[in-house]
């Protein structure tokens, strides 16, 4: 029963990892950009949520109403202002610029919020739970998983059913021809980053309710998100959810074997999948 519990809790944890990963997956899919600062942006969102909840005195979930649009705006500005200049065949400029951004964000947050671990207070939601058979499920993890499914469904729908999604797919397939067809790729990229960071905002708030965070933990979140993307297969959003779940289960089962092995078990499963299926489990586009 303990093992079943570990698997179920891991699956729910995977929802959070899928939220970390969805933004990465989206921007990679649209503009082949890998954002090293992604983890730090998640933490930035968590701190923004913290500020909103303390200043306005509202519940963290209500803070989403402000943090999601704020992160969207930051994303659009970031893409139009800086990241668009780095896109091209060369891999190094986007990598280095987002690396620089990561260092700036980490130290900027350190300057403003100090290195003390912080946490958002979500009141009764944090400890609420309900029983399913012999298992007890926390309301927050279940809610997180449900949000992850909804977000991925929403992204999928945007991608394949809307004009914006058509624009995303067009610039992803061929930037130059999309440009000839009247799409402004700089604007489209800006919108993609805005959407990605809006998802990041949700991930950051849920992370901040679930665990404590400090300015230095962004890198770890980036790696979890990245692993979920690779396990699931590049360019496949539902695959990313599956990747997040596999990673979450690997971690909780690893922690069950030995508490020190939690994170390590996740990395090892990732490397094993990389050895067996280098393109991930459900690849859609090639790297």
């Amino acid at each position, binding site marked *: 029963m303990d093992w079943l519990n570990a698997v179920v809790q891991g699956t729910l944890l995977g929802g959070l990892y899928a939220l970390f990963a969805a933004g990465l997956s989206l921007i990679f899919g649209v503009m082949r950009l890998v954002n090293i600062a992604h983890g730090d942006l998640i933490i930035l969102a968590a701190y923004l949520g913290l500020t909103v909840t303390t200043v306005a005195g509202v519940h963290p979930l209500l803070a989403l109403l402000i943090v999601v649009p704020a992160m969207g705006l930051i994303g659009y500005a970031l893409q139009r202002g800086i990241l668009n200049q*780095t896109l091209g065949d060369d891999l190094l400029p986007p990598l280095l610029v987002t690396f620089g951004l990561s260092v700036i964000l980490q130290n900027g947050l350190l300057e403003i919020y100090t290195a003390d671990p912080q946490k958002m207070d979500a009141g009764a939601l944090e400890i609420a739970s309900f029983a399913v058979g012999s298992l007890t499920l926390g309301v927050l993890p279940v809610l997180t998983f449900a949000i992850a499914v909804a977000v991925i469904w929403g992204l999928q729908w945007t991608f394949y059913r809307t004009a914006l999604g058509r624009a995303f797919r067009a610039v992803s397939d061929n930037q130059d021809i999309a440009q000839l067809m009247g799409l402004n790729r700089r604007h489209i990229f800006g919108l993609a980053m805005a959407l990605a960071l809006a998802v990041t905002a949700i991930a950051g708030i849920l992370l901040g309710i679930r665990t404590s965070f400090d300015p230095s933990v962004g890198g770890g979140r980036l790696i979890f998100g990245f692993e979920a993307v690779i396990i699931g297969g590049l360019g496949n959003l539902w695959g990313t959810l599956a990747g997040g779940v596999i990673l979450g289960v690997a971690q909780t089962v690893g922690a069950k074997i030995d508490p020190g092995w939690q994170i390590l078990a996740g990395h090892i499963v990732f*490397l094993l999948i990389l050895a067996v299926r280098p393109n991930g489990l459900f690849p859609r586009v090639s790297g």
Partner: protein
Amino acid sequence: MSLQNYTVTRTSQAARAAAILGALVLLVLIAAPWWAGRADMRLMGEIFLYLALASLWNLMAGYAGLVSVGQQAFVGFGGYILFALTIFVGLPPIVAIAAAGVLGAIIAVPMAALIFRLRGAYFAIGTWVFAEVFRLSFAQISSLGGGSGSSLPVGIVRSMAASRDGRESLSYWLALGIAVLVIAAVYLFLRSRNGLALTAIRDNELAAGSLGIDIWRTKFVVYVVTAGLTAMVGALIFLQKLRISPDAAFSVNDWTAFVIFIVVIGGIGTIEGPIIGTLIFFALRETLADLGTTYLIVLGLVAIVVMLKAPKGVWSLIRTRFDLQLFPLGYRVQHNDKKAD
């Protein structure tokens, strides 16, 4: 205007002057224990170790196109191997440093086999995952202090040299030695047949492959050799620090982010770039370090601005302005009438 009026040369007057000047500077640096203070020697030792790391990362990223953000895996691995071999096996530190290099290269072989399946930026983050695996694994080894780390026992430190001055001079010379070794190795490698292949791959991978260059093998060799040398540098870093912990040993900021900034600011894909970048990095650090975190924000901004405005770095600005190449790698055609040489 016949062809005989032209000659192809590799070296130049500037390069010869640089070689002589470099040799003189090297002699002065070797003599540092007799003219420099304790704090200066420590700082210079650190500069040499960063120079070695930067030159190695430059070889990988600037020439082989292997953009790794996980070199801290080998820095930390080398440091831990030094501690393990001296404490448990009783090897003298110098032997343990060499062993760290060999073991670092050996462990890089299976890593390369796995990680080379990822491309581009995903390769980069994949290397980071490996570094995390190393960090978490070494944190599990309780005999090396687990998550809180351990110090090098006094007896081992004393075994290097009897006096404190002697130890400090030795560790300074080792740092200088590895920097010179790395730069010489990179220079000679790039002038060799393999280096030519590497430069061809850098310029156009597809064309290089069609000329019969084994791209995978060339990159593999670079990755493994770099890993071994990086592990040796790592062992030296922690021989200087005398204390190791998983978070310090496998720090992505200290051993990769700063190194990447150094190379990019100085000029990626040149031997001179990392040297200039290291000097700029330490000049910034020594003047701005009092500002604390602001200094790191400034560093990040400088790196971003350089990447956007002068992506080839400071050295390329100098090189295009004065047509200089201090480490003669390429060939140049000269018209004999000028009689430059």
